[in-house]
């Protein structure tokens, strides 16, 4: 069965485009969420190549194990050669692409550029998939909030800048901190509950239906490097991800876990209802006491198969 992230990738239309990153942002997040694109990637075959590379990373192809980014990048470089792409002149006979210096980010098939494309598309499909499984009824009830945490190591995290004198702090560019992106997004979303949690605990936690997630992706605080999505990666080359926060944990830090609404998504069921099952109070109380006293302990059985 296809993974959720693969289904998200399959649902997206190819979008060969001559537009740059800023112009793409102006198209609006809805179009970009539903399209597979890369700035200035005008050639349809090249965009198809990116799609195949993403599929190979997410699911593997022809019964093989999933590709690493390096495997996928190598295949895309072969596509660039096959299409006759030259950074100085673009695609032969194809739509114009601004000339680029070989090996730079503007060179559509450079290592740097392909890494950025693959990393962004891989994280975007998984981030969109997270909005699907994270909004399923039981999941929403048990984990009503997300927390923003670092999931990937990066060389220079936002909030620092490499200068000739060494590393310099840029607090307004950091994700956390009083001047950072999270604080700016909280202001824009007007989320008092998440603001109080941030102030008291320093944790970047908000309800799944909070507007703070979209504000973060829209670049609240005047950041131009974001992708317009309410899911990760909120900005290019970002290593931040959302992890689910349980109802008990959310309540313990001052959140209200009740009545969180399912996020609307272009990819999956956008209306889910929290389960209405009711269980016998006596049975539940017995279970609660037994779990708390240690009389009841569940075990897991691990079966390792090749």
């Amino acid at each position: 069965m296809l993974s959720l992230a693969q289904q998200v990738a399959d649902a997206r239309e190819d979008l060969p485009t001559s537009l740059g990153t800023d112009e793409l942002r102006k198209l609006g997040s809805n179009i970009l969420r539903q399209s597979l694109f890369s700035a200035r990637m005008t050639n349809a075959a090249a965009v198809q190549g990116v799609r195949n590379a993403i599929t190979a990373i997410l699911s593997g192809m022809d019964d093989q194990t999933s590709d690493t980014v390096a495997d996928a990048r190598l295949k895309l470089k072969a596509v660039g050669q096959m299409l006759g792409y030259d950074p100085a002149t673009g695609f032969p006979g194809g739509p114009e692409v601004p000339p680029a210096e070989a090996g730079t980010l503007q060179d559509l098939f450079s290592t740097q550029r392909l890494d950025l494309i693959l990393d962004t598309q891989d994280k975007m499909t998984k981030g969109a998939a997270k909005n699907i499984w994270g909004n399923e009824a039981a999941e929403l009830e048990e984990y009503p909030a997300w927390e923003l945490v670092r999931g990937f190591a990066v060389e220079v995290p936002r909030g620092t800048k490499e200068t000739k004198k060494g590393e310099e702090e840029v607090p307004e560019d950091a994700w956390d901190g009083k001047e950072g992106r999270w604080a700016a997004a909280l202001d824009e979303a007007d989320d008092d509950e998440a603001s109080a949690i941030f102030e008291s605990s320093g944790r970047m936690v908000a309800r799944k239906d909070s507007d703070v997630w979209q504000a973060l992706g829209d670049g609240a605080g005047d950041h131009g490097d974001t992708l317009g999505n309410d899911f990760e990666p909120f900005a290019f080359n970002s290593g931040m991800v959302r992890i689910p926060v349980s109802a008990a944990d959310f309540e313990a830090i001052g959140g209200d876990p009740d009545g969180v609404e399912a996020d609307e998504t272009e990819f999956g069921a956008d209306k889910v209802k929290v389960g209405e099952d009711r269980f016998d109070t006596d049975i539940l109380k017995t279970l609660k006491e037994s779990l708390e006293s240690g009389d009841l302990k569940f075990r897991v059985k691990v079966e390792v198969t090749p």
Partner: protein
Amino acid sequence: MTISIVSDTAAPALRQTIAMLRNKGPLVGAMGRRLIHDTSLHVMQWGIGHPNKLGGRRTNYWGRIAQKINPGDCLQVQANSATVTLGGPTMPGLMRAFGDITIFPGTKTAGVKYLAIPARAESYGMRAREFGNLVLFWKGKGRVGGLAEAVTTTRTRKTSKGEKGSEYFRPGLIMYWFAESVTVPQDRSILPSEQEWSESVNAGATDWVNLQLRKIKGGA
């Protein structure tokens, strides 16, 4: 690899109580979800804490695997049991938690005889073919050693018409070692221990029971 929530250590009377829970799906589902979230977080943190040995750029291999560990893809809930499936072709590497893994060349590209093992930080996360300036080097007895940066040398020789120079490449900095196979040793710490998994499912069960009681009292 499959992880099943199989049994409990409850006394017979308590087992009867559990048996009275007509639909156990929501309970075991909650336990499975907690196990999955804790496992994903564990793998993500393990990856952050384990940079490449050579100190090269981070490929975030484990972070990408962690993002694939989610209830939408890994959890199956039946009426009485939940099964979590991890590993398989989309999460290669996770099986290292349970034994050594031997990697052979040619599984992705037919005809490849050697694995290229990074010898320097800058070759980490790059395929040898992406470098345009590598030459083979040998390690005696006609055995190929790996790939090194090509250094251009001009050799001059005297001929009847005077001196004649010719350029040739010789190996410089070693970038990759060749190997016919590589065995990556088992590391159980990649995944939570079975004890930690059991703690996860019990925490999931406790939270679920509390949530249901809260609903009955009028919350949620």
